[in-house]
């Protein structure tokens, strides 16, 4: 991971900053997830992913991507699945 521009291979043993950066890039670029709105952090040795994804399939895929990029870090997957059953309330734009 030294300037290859790829950034999605395993990064364990690297500084947390690089783990976070490479995982966020992988979550955006990996076709299983493809979500730029997810944010990663390293907390107490765990990789934590937060944000919203569109489907349960993509939520589950976060674990697969994190497993590829940071295989030695336990994952706390806190990403939510978008679920909006309520009908919208109208807003009169003033």
């Amino acid at each position, binding site marked *: 991971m030294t300037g290859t521009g790829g950034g999605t291979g395993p990064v364990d043993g690297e500084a947390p900053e690089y783990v976070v950066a490479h995982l966020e890039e992988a979550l955006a670029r990996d076709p299983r997830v*493809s979500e730029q*709105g997810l944010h990663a952090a390293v907390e107490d040795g765990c990789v934590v992913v937060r944000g919203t994804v*569109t489907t349960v399939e993509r939520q589950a895929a976060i674990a697969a991507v994190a497993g590829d990029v940071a295989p030695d870090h336990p994952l706390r997957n806190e990403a939510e699945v*978008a679920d909006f059953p*309520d009908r*919208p*309330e109208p807003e009169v734009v003033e």
Partner: protein
Amino acid sequence: MIRIAAVGDIHAGEDSPATLGQQFGHLAEGADLLLLAGDLTKRGRPEEARVVADAVAQTGVPVAAVLGNHDYECSRHTEVVSILEGAGVRVLEGSTATYEIGGTVVGVAGTKGFGGGFAGACATPFGEPETKAFIGHTAALADGLEAALRSVAEADVRIALLHYSPVPATLVGERLEIYPFLGSYLLAEAVDRAGADLVLHGHAHAGTERGETPGGVPVRNVAQPLLRRAYALLCLDAGRREAGCEANA
């Protein structure tokens, strides 16, 4: 009173048909028009565009859209546009769609927009060609938006439909460091020069729903992850927006 359903960042994929069908199933009961503020697809693949096309074709209302950055990921955006337009969606880029709804003419001017940042913290077209290209892209799209808005100056209601944000107010909640990748003041300046009744955008999932341009035009961030509802339902009156939406909804 015009009732506009607006949403961005639906990120449709082949795993989304049931979700989209549920979200848009009753849309026509409360809305006259559906506006999609970009990131319609997960990665800009034709298969994903077909999911969007099938879902919106069943709404029974006119649909206009702009593309977002996700829709360009696989460099197949031309096919994405063709599929959407084949389903009756007007896909806008520096162009307009006009609708007559209950005697009111609604003009929608659209562009994806792009980044660059906002006053006091924005990139300038100086130095490397890559930097000039970045800001040049935003400036060209802003110019296209301004021309499009001017071309529907006679409409009773004018709406600017974007993916990237024109103002920082609707980005509050996002990390400040990424604002230059979420929008540009050039888009707001185009709106304020040409005039509009409402600006819609997406892209900023963790932003804020409401803002306005420096010229006082209302701005709504309709990114679905921010809304936490299927779409925003916005009501405007040609006589500068009077109450009464609930009675029509």
